[in-house]
């Protein structure tokens, strides 16, 4: 009794692909069940099946029950009566999950009107919007999705989800696109809802921090199977299955870093008073820093704080309105394209998104060879083989196209390419944000190893504090275009001076439920 939603022997296949096999678990009233597992393990399809939202070609067997009604076999009309009303869903992508041409108010109102007959829907809409913590709800209701930030949009999604007081909310990676501070707020919101309304929540996520923060129970999926389930403390602290252990081990933890700031040397990159305007808005405001020979500078900060822009300026992809950038002691503002070429050979860059930084029409080998061709390096083929070897990509992969690789493999290709010319400076822009934790772990390992061997200097951009903690010698924290704090890794993470840095550190959840609970309490 008390099971609100239960899956029994649920199997889902897409033609050949078995996306989920014999999946069984239940969610009780007021309980949060987290579903974790590597990418493609069947988390989303399982969740989607509860609402009958799978594409037609999916074959589903097994039972899904809402309280004691079998819902998998319900006819369309009854199923629709259920959707949004008793089971609601919050989707991963807040950017695209809302219709761009309808107002927020209209979309929330629609969710209500489809199931309820209220005299004053507008009032209810405003109420809901303020419930999910949007300021000026009256005004927000009249706005369009593009006028809202990602976090706000995610709140709108939640407002829609709770509009009919559903029995279950399924939240599919509700915070992946958001930065830690916003993430923390969303999580608080979900928790509050659960407490107040007794809603059952199925939470799909790859962040163990989130799991630790919110979940009561955890279901671990691996290649379509549930390999382990149990209370959050049991699973996170005392994992039984081999895969769960591997997964947890791969999660980077803040406060485990070891690298020290090194003695100041001739700076490879010096940025002074950098200011960048986008449509009159200061994306980067008077930023100055240096990176010495062989040093890794971690650049952290919330989403949109200007990290990528700083990185792009450093290599001349973006023209600043003010400030100087000196590469290897030369001010690049005064360099002609021709003089710039030899400098370019000494810089490598790994872009934020591994998928888009490789030309989909070039093979792995061609991608890696491109800088060699551009700078007419000798013995190209040998060098490519050597590089692929260095990033642990086998010979058999060299003729594949990027879309035939996994995310991790793609990231390695772009690292190999960045290192092709033995750069003295590497700019790595969130090289792991698109990856799942296990893949991320292997890339970070590789990176550390290469950096130790090749001794290149590096600007390492990330919003994941734990990752930076692991790699950086020194850390700079950006907030709204400004560097608010910089110093050695140990200083910044160990004894933050600035309020913002402290908030950032506090907001980052740790994948330990006990510790996380304490942190939450201390945060207040």
């Amino acid at each position: 009794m008390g099971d609100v939603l239960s899956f029994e022997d649920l199997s889902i296949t897409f033609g050949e692909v078995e996306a989920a096999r014999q999946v069984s678990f239940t969610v009780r009233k007021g309980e949060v069940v987290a579903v974790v597992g590597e990418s493609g393990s069947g988390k989303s399809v399982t969740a989607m099946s509860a609402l009958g939202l799978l594409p037609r070609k999916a074959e589903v067997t097994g039972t899904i029950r809402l309280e004691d009604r079998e819902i998998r076999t319900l006819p369309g009309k009854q199923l629709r009566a259920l959707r949004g009303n008793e089971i609601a869903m919050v989707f991963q992508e807040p950017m695209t999950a809302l219709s761009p041409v309808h107002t927020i108010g209209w979309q929330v109102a629609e969710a209500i009107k489809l199931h309820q007959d209220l005299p004053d829907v507008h009032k209810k809409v405003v109420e809901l919007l303020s419930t999910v913590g949007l300021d000026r709800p009256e005004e927000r209701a009249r706005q369009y999705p593009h006028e809202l930030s990602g976090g706000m949009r995610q709140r709108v999604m939640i407002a829609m989800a709770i509009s009919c007081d559903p029995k279950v909310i399924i939240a599919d990676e509700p915070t992946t696109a958001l930065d830690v501070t916003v993430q923390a707020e969303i999580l608080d919101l979900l928790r509050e809802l659960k407490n107040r309304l007794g809603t059952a929540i199925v939470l799909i996520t790859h962040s163990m921090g989130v799991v630790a923060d919110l979940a009561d129970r955890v279901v671990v999926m691996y290649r379509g199977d549930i390999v382990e389930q149990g209370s959050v403390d049991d699973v996170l602290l005392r994992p039984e299955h081999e895969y769960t252990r591997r997964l947890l081990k791969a999660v980077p933890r803040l406060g485990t870093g070891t690298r020290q700031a090194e003695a100041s040397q001739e700076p490879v990159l010096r940025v002074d008073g950098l200011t960048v305007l986008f449509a009159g808005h200061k994306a980067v405001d008077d930023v100055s820093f240096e990176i010495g020979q062989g040093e890794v500078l971690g650049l952290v900060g919330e989403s949109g704080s200007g990290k990528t822009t700083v990185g792009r300026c450093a290599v001349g992809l973006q023209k600043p309105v003010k400030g100087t950038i000196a590469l290897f002691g030369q001010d690049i503002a005064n360099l002609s394209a021709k003089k710039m070429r030899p400098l370019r050979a000494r810089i490598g860059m790994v872009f934020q998104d591994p998928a888009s930084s490789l030309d989909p029409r070039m093979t792995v080998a061609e991608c890696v060879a491109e800088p060699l061709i551009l700078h007419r390096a000798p013995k190209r083929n040998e060098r490519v083989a050597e590089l692929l070897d260095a990033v642990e990509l086998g010979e058999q992969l060299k003729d594949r196209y990027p879309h035939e690789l996994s995310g991790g493999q793609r990231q390695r290709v772009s690292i190999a390419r960045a290192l092709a010319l033995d750069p003295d400076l590497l700019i790595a822009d969130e090289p792991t944000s698109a990856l799942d934790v296990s893949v991320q772990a292997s890339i970070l390992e590789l990176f550390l190893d290469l950096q130790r061997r090749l001794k290149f200097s590096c600007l390492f951009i990330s919003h994941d504090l734990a990752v930076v903690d692991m790699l950086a010698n020194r850390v700079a924290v950006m907030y709204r275009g400004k560097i608010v704090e910089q110093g050695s890794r140990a200083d910044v993470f160990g004894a933050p001076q600035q309020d913002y840095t402290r908030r950032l550190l506090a907001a980052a959840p740790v994948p330990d439920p006990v510790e996380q609970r304490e942190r939450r309490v201390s945060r207040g």
Partner: protein
Amino acid sequence: MSGPNTRRLKRFLRNKLAFVGFGLLVLLVLFCFVGPLFYKTEQVLTTLQDGRLAPGVNGHPLGTDDLGYDLLGRLMLAGQTSLVIGLAAGILATVIGMLWGAVAGYAGGWVDAVMMRIVDAGIAIPALFLLVVAAAITTPSVPMLILVIGLVSWLVPARLMRAESVALRGRAYVESMRLMGGSSVRAIGKHIIPNAIGTVIVNATFQIADAVLLVAYVSFLGLGIPPPAANWGGMLSDGLTYAHDGAWWLILPPGLLIVMTVCAFNFIGDGLRDAFDVKFGGH
């Protein structure tokens, strides 16, 4: 291991419509270019006495026209002109449009603004005007029609390509190549054009179909190629004047062939669109 091209081919062949289109096109080409080798007819010297025969008379399966040319043979000859002009003009328009759009989109800034305002102006000038002026300045011939039709229809591909180019310019792989010291020419040639090729090829098939129609339209307006050359559009518009007498054989065959050609290229275009569609791609 299968490269993206073989996979694309498979996807293309799996699309039934595309397959039908491709089959149609092969048939048409065979009819126009191989047909005359087996079905030999006089298409230069006139025989006025034999003019305007109904189908079947004197061994002319589709009858003859005013000048005594065998109509079936004429359809083949006309098809060569229509297909050649259609293909060449479509490709010309696509190539010009592609390069123009790629450069404009890639360069951005004022170069882009100037180049695209030229395209805007071109779009704003009715194609009819350019056709009329071209007909007045030069005399119609196959190369001339190819050039003119190519020149009036490159604007849309240019627009399309520019949009692609703008989007691709910002892609990290183009930026990374530039960052590594690559030139603009390489960026356009090696990255931007190849990555927009799907859109471009699909558009090219539509351009070809449109060019075939435009030849018909131009003939209707009396700007066609002088006799004894022929094209389907010209035959169709000539035939129309006899339609009041129920001379279906003058209208139906060229009309049908035009429709078949346009459909064939459109089907192929649809198939290619699917074949190049990234959403269909992936694993």
